């Protein structure tokens, strides 16, 4: 594996970026996600009003892939309806599971997050990439 395909500029920037790494005052949904094997541990908070994700953020710690993935998800899903968000999450998970491989389609729906497609070839990092997405899915579905 070529490291330059994994540690791309986009991933490194999202990993260092702290915009989305914060707590949300008055959040409506919150969930903690954990990868016991490598120690990634993140908490997703969302403020959902009238079925729309008004604000989304995360806290915690983890490897660059888990942090960048959480940051990209936050950018992508803020402002979406819960329904849209759940659909996009499924498409992201489908990409990682290699069920969806059309890169044009993935780029259109997932924007920057489509860059994580290559993770599907790295079993050791799959859990890191999907952690935030699974956690948000659980957060919104739990309250239904």
């Amino acid at each position, binding site marked *: *594996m070529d*490291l330059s395909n*994994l*540690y791309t500029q986009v991933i*490194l920037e999202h*990993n*260092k970026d702290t915009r989305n790494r914060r707590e949300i005052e008055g959040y409506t949904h919150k969930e903690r996600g954990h990868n016991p*094997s*490598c*120690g*990634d*541990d993140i908490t997703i908070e969302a403020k959902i009003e009238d079925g729309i994700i008004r604000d989304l953020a995360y806290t915690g*710690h*983890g*490897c*660059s*892939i888990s*942090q960048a993935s959480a940051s990209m998800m936050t950018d992508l899903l803020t402002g979406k309806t819960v329904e849209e968000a759940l659909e996009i999450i499924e498409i992201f998970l489908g990409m990682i599971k290699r069920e969806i491989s059309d890169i044009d389609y993935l780029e259109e729906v997932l924007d920057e997050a489509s860059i994580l497609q290559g993770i599907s070839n790295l079993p*050791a*990092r799959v859990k*890191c990439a999907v952690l935030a997405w699974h956690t948000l899915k659980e957060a919104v579905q739990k309250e239904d």
Partner: protein
Amino acid sequence: MRDFREDFPILNQEVNGRKIIYLDSAATSQRPQQVLDAVMKYDHEANGNPHRGSHALSMRATEAFENVREKVRSFIGARCTKEIIFTKNATEAINLVAYSYALEHMKPGDQIVITIAEHHANLVTWQQIAKKTGAHLVYMYVDPEGRLPLGELQKIDQKTKLVACTHMSNVLGSIFPVDKVIQRGHEVGAKVLIDGAQAVAHMPVDVAELDCDFYVFSGHKMYSLTGVGVLYGREEILEKMEPFLYGGDMIEYVYEEETSFNELPFKFEAGTQGIESVVSLGAAIDYLHEVTFELIHEKEMELTEYALRRLEELPYIRIVGPKDLNHRGAVISFVVEDVHPHDVSMILDNYGVGVRAGHHCAQPLLRFMEVYTCSRASFAFFNTKEEIDALVDNLNEVRRWMGYGSK
């Protein structure tokens, strides 16, 4: 000097186009050719089910199996082979003591004392036994350097019925004052279990001299195959303990309603054991004797000193554990500033360097030391200074890949 690396065929291969550098012996050690040959020889010449038949192969298997028991006895200085129980690994040995001894003897208000540095195997087990019996679990804490201050031993008091302590921490690398822990335990009438998983491949251990009640270790961290561990127990204690697992070979007479159990050590070895693994353990002991603990100690300390010195040159490295060689083994945990250990190990792997990342089965310890996860390099006597140079030089690469300045 002989190149011991050549004894380990697995090291003679490349990872990502580079000669493999194995710095994870604390997780599992590699197997020398001598151990692999012994297993092959057993399967070519002697495989049968021990203790169960009077044909040639069953007798050869019995002999091979029981010879290893004697080797283990002599290796750790036990008084007799009745005190040597084969298990699957150190974890199972601890659980055997937990279920067959502790569960029977603990009452509400009793105390179990362990250290914060225990591997989950020697921590979760006692935490759960405490919950089941109403006993209190009390922790002895390490100092900021990762050593156990003797003052903590005062927590072992009259209420204490059992003390469980690691001989050497798999995270910190510190060697604990187990002789004093055992002495203190016995002063208050407690039984003392020592987890020797990280110790036995690196230093001579004498259970009679230590005077502990139980000593456990795994074969696969001392150059044998996986699937074999050892429980040493003081004969008079084992004698009074109930069996842990029921089944074949651990019985004497079986009737429809009643069973009488076999004598020690067979009482604790239900079912057909992992005989190849046991055979490999015997060969591993021979191998360690051949290399000698003097040489192992000398080489490993030389490597550890060199690695500590080189790592300390890097301003972005924080070592989790003692920074000098005083009561310390060849395990070095560290944090790379701003880089998660999972990224550290992945990038190092790209350069052929294998280190462990994560919480190392010691979550409470890492929480106490205020690190979430860390990287760990652990050395065996066959490692070289060049390999440590590769580790250190490629840590600069780790920083560079993650977009930080290296020095």
